[in-house]
């Protein structure tokens, strides 16, 4: 198999190198990729949408249909991970372990017996290791600032590099940091499975709903100037505000998908201990 792989790679590489001889020279302003549509985008973005970041304007306004389906693809990937890992039938383990948080004493409850619910005992697994105090404290102090920065990235995506995707991934990464430094069970207590799944769908719904609202108000699907009478601004600022609304939808969907996939992967669906 290695020899077949080597032959195929070398042949494809040689063919691509032969094709690369005809490419335009590196960093040529008159290359065909930069001649037809992109001068229109660069020159007309400010007067049509009043958003200085050309990439955000093209992503959310001129090519908004692509981005809506991309958000749907991300949501579908989270859903597939959920169906692969979480929905198989597993037997309950025969004995459960609990730990008294104040003294560190662990007790083992065999199957069939119950522990009266109390706030002093936490559930653990047989592989439990105590999280380090320094890491726990440092991450607990850092996570609010990471989330604040992520909200800044989403909101400031019109004027600086950023936007919905980047801010959503950083928000998801802050919750994953909580799950790594503390326990997966701590994270599930704060953001339960049901909330994450529903928020993920709500993100896609915000995006598609904004487009449908424009359709209901009389113009094309995802044509944000239809929102102008609703928001009491002129049509150009309505496009800028419409881009902000869909970026929020994208950010929420991406955040919840990252959390969802991490929860399912790190516990292999069992939602017990995590990493």
């Amino acid at each position, binding site marked *: 198999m290695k020899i077949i792989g080597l032959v195929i790679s070398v042949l494809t590489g040689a063919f691509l190198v032969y094709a690369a001889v005809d490419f335009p020279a590196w*960093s040529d302003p008159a290359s065909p990729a930069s001649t037809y549509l992109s001068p229109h985008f660069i020159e007309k973005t400010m007067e049509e949408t009043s958003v200085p*970041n050309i*990439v*955000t304007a093209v992503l959310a306004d001129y090519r908004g249909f692509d981005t809506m389906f991309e958000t749907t693809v991300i949501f579908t990937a989270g859903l597939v991970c959920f169906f692969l890992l979480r929905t198989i039938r597993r037997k309950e383990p025969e004995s459960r372990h609990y730990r008294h948080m104040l003294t560190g004493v662990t007790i083992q409850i065999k199957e069939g017996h119950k522990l009266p619910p109390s706030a002093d005992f936490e559930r653990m697994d047989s592989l439990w290791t105590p999280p380090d105090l320094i890491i726990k404290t440092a991450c607990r102090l850092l996570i609010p600032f990471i989330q604040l920065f992520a909200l800044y990235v989403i909101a400031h995506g019109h004027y600086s*590099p*950023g*936007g919905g*995707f*980047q801010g959503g*991934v*950083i928000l*998801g*990464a802050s919750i*994953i940091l909580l799950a*790594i430094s503390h326990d997966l069970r701590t994270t599930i207590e704060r953001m339960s499975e049901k909330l994450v799944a529903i928020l993920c769908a709500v993100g896609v719904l915000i995006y598609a709903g904004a487009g449908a609202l424009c359709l209901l108000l009389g113009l094309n699907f995802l044509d944000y100037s239809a929102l102008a009478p609703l928001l009491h601004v002129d049509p150009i600022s309505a496009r800028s505000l419409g881009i902000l609304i869909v970026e929020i939808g994208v950010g929420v969907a991406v955040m919840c998908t*990252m959390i969802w*996939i*991490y929860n399912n*992967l*790190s516990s*292999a669906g069992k939602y017990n201990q995590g*990493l």
Partner: protein
Amino acid sequence: MIWQLDLAILTLVVMASVGALMVKDLLGAAILFGAYSFMMCLLWSIMGAVDVAFTEASVGAGVSTVFFVAAVFRTSRRTKD
């Protein structure tokens, strides 16, 4: 576009990718893949693609590496290949 910087980072990218595929420890492969993603992010910053570099830094060098480490933790860590 300083071509010396470009060539140096491209060499590091190729070395990181070959290294990620040849180590026998899967955790090392995951971390080398994170380094590869970060070198790609630097390349795109040099070329002026700041949005793409931002996304790759947060997605590739952040969340993607964590997914790999989580999956390696749940399966085996050594490989004979």
